[in-house]
């Protein structure tokens, strides 16, 4: 008994140690974002702020300068959502529709198409840059929000298709046949039978696609609107400013703010995420 408690105590000690190790950068950032600039420069990185201040957070949100532009990261934050929300919506809608067609309305080409889509999702993004640039120019949406929405939607479709297809393939085909006999058409079956069964997998898709778009740097930098850059490009601009005083506390606060949405998404939807990923593994 004692040996066992000793053993588990050891395990917990090691786990806590690793936890602290991985959380330490977060801690350093957290305390630094509440210090004054002077204190950041002088004190140890692990020490708590002597004077707590939320000045850096306010400045990062609405007053920090990148170049001549001193409006913080707020506009970029909003701009990112303007891109991410429609792109997530379209990517998921089209992915669900694709998965539905591939599993229930089986055609000869379903497997070939699925293979092609899979390949599409593994090709490095950089390969697409020039063709995408040309396409966006031809469509006359280069450097616009619409352009980025289009790119992220298209790039999200292989992932969402894969997710929804693998989920829908586990649905019994009798369900679909019953709906056909009941006289439901293509979209009626999709919206009344299939979609209501999909919330778990939809949350997985939302988390993956949203964090993909939100964390995207390459497309944001290349195709983003210069005055409405997506957040990752904006933070980079802010942090990488090469003239003036480096305001570490403000920069850190800006990084923090930019990381919050994905962090919160995982915290609140993580439960569904795991449920969605393991769905179908156990009959239920």
């Amino acid at each position, binding site marked *: 008994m004692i040996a066992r408690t000793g053993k588990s105590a050891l395990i917990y000690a090691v786990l806590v140690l690793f936890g602290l190790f991985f959380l330490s950068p977060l801690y350093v950032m957290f305390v630094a974002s509440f210090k004054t600039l002077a204190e950041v420069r002088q004190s140890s990185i692990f020490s708590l702020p002597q004077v707590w201040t939320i000045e850096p957070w306010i400045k990062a949100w609405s007053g920090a300068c990148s170049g001549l532009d001193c409006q913080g990261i707020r506009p970029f934050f909003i701009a990112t959502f303007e891109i991410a929300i429609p792109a997530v919506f379209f990517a998921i809608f089209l992915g669900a529709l694709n998965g539905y067609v591939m599993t229930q309305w089986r055609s000869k080409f379903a497997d070939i198409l699925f293979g092609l889509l899979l390949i599409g999702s593994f090709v490095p993004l950089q390969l697409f840059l020039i063709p995408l640039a040309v396409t966006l120019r031809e469509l006359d949406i280069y450097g616009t929000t619409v352009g980025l929405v289009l790119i992220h939607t298209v790039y999200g479709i292989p992932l969402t298709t894969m997710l929804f297809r693998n989920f829908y393939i586990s649905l019994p085909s009798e369900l679909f046949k019953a709906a*056909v006999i009941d006289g439901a058409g293509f979209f009626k079956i999709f919206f009344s039978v299939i979609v209501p069964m999909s919330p778990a997998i939809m949350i997985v898709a939302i988390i993956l696609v949203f964090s993909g778009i939100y964390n995207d740097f390459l497309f944001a930098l290349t195709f983003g609107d210069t005055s409405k850059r997506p957040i990752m490009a904006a933070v980079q601009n802010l942090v990488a400013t090469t003239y003036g005083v480096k305001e570490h506390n403000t920069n850190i606060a800006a990084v923090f703010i930019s990381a919050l949405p994905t962090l919160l998404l995982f915290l609140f939807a993580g439960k569904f995420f795991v449920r969605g990923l393991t769905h179908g593994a156990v009959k239920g």
Partner: protein
Amino acid sequence: MSLKLTNIKKMFGQVEVLHDISLEIDPGDVLVLLGGSGCGKTTLLNCIAGLEKTTSGTVEIMGRDVTDINPSDRNIAMVFQSYALYPTMTVARNIGFGLECAGMPKKERSQAVGKVAALLKIDDLLHRKPSQLSGGQRQRVAIGRALVRNPDIFLLDEPMSNLDAQLRNQMRSELRDLHKALNRTFILVTHDQIEAMSMATKVAVIDQGRIQQFGTPYDIFHKPNNKFVAEFIGVNKMNFLNAKFSLIDEVPCLVIGSHKTSLRSYEFSNQPPKDGQTVHLGLRPENIYRLKERLEGQEYFTGELEVISSELTGSDVQVLLNFENQVITSRFRSTRMPEIGTKILVYLDLRNISLFNTQTGQRF
């Protein structure tokens, strides 16, 4: 005529799973498609429903050619093996979904659903989800979904295979009552011959995509068309004995070793065998008796036969006997269990036998 199939053929790629199936049933019939797994019975049901396109041949329902018509426009309803209830909808919406798709206004719809629910005694479950129901209740909802559409033909795909034995008996008699009350055509797919015997007015025994026999349950049991049907039907397997057929003074006779009897009562459904031809005699274990009084006719074999094995199965005892160096299976009441190695006097009743061609397996 409520259903008429003419030369139905179905190919999956290069594989022909249904070969030239034709049959016809009347309104109010209960047709059971009976066969082992993979015999094509569910495929045939799907072809009738329109869920599978036939490769060739025509399907007619109530005199209307529906071969190229959508499942929902055939005026049929189907109960699936897994019930296939929509898991996110309430029981009420599950039942009414077909009407909803047909565009029926909400008020009429809920009236129709209420009526069906009352009939099936599930009116207190209408607001539940399928996951909150027991197996028997799900079954009822699935039947309700079929009922509410008031179809010409009910298609049921192994409807009782997911229920336990007790519930199955109950559902079986409820289905029979339902059929009596509605007087509609039912088509039922099953691999359970007891279900087939007790429910059907017509049975189609299917094997390897072919109808082996189509007839009443009585005929299927007592006059099997071929050796496959003879072996497939019957809880206790039919005995097959090599026998010699002979004509003595134009009277058909059957000879096995030193046993010989006339066969006046046998009705030949096809050309009788030739004089001296060897045939297979199909004899059910239930037609072997220990008492002479039980014989149903004048024609029988009798003798003191050696008991090879004797196995208790409960109310019955299964006894293997040596009859002219051929092993026959018989069943007796277990209260008189014979010892192995002893000889017992038995009577082989030849009133309800089948004679088969040794080569083709077809009934004479």
